[in-house]
């Protein structure tokens, strides 16, 4: 295995383990240097397996070898060298994950911080809903208006051109009739459905907040 392969394998494992980039760079530059020195010395075969080296580094950083981060890296305490009168160095093990009671606060901060992302999305969704409502209502009323206009126009035309007038008035009646038959029930369902959609959205946002508060309360 040459140096680049060795370092690539190490980086791969370290990245999978979620080690911070700075720590990865530090480790890689150390092992690159040692690798080069080893090549000049007794050969690079003493270097060992890059993946197991990387796993050791991850373990030292408090990350499980299988890639699950036990702790966010920034919570790792630097080992303290509290030397007592006996001179023994006590290594403080990296502590268990802190219980964060500020989870709710973090959530809120996250929501505020991600505002540039969710705000446009929210606006688009609201606008789309509004457009759909307006289009449906406009279609419905233009339907009705067209029907009535055709009926009235047809009746007026009846005196000048009886057959065309009859056809037009008939068309108007058909359209108006269709409106009464179809649009009436549809509108009756459409309006409450629209109101429900909005109510659901608002309820869900409210639930999210209440649950978040309860979980961490």
């Amino acid at each position: 295995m040459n140096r680049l392969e060795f370092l690539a394998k190490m980086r791969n494992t370290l990245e999978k383990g979620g080690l911070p980039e700075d720590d990865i760079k530090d480790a890689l530059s150390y092992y690159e240097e040692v690798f080069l020195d080893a090549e000049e010395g007794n050969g690079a075969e003493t270097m060992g397996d890059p993946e197991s080296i990387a796993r050791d580094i991850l373990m030292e950083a408090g990350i499980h070898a299988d890639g699950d981060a036990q702790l966010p890296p920034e919570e790792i305490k630097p080992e303290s060298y509290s030397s007592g009168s006996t001179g023994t160095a006590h290594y403080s093990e990296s502590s268990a994950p802190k219980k964060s009671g500020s989870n709710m606060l973090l959530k809120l901060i996250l929501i505020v911080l991600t505002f540039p992302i969710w705000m446009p999305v929210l606006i688009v969704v609201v606008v789309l809903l509004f457009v759909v409502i307006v289009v449906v209502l406009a279609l419905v009323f233009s339907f009705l208006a067209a029907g009535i206009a055709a009926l009235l126009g047809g009746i007026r035309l009846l005196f000048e051109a009886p057959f065309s007038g009859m056809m037009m008035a008939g068309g108007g009646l058909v359209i108006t009739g269709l409106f009464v038959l179809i649009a009436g029930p549809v509108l009756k369902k459409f309006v409450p459905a629209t109101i429900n959609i909005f109510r659901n959205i608002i309820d869900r946002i409210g639930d999210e907040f209440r649950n978040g508060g309860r979980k961490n309360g």
Partner: protein
Amino acid sequence: MGFSINAGLLDAMVLSIVQNNDTYGYEITQYLRRAVDISESTLYPVLRRLQKGELLETYDKEYMGRNRRYYRITEKGKDTLEEYREEWQNHKRKVDSILMNEGAEDNEQT
């Protein structure tokens, strides 16, 4: 070596090596290998730990067109090394008092 080297002892040995001379990772490993069987993956965490504890500091030096990171012992590192040395003397005495004497007694008994 049949005896395992614990982290404290390894720290002490590295501090001692660096106190003699500012040196770099590969050389430290070579020194350590005279006494203990360690792999490359052992030393790096030790050096990191000593750096974080501010017992060692680093500086870079050019060597053959590339970089070499040298380690230098800090004042805090020197103090800690002295404590390690005292502790090791105590430890060695205690172990010797049991290991060497008892070993002799066992031989007499058999």
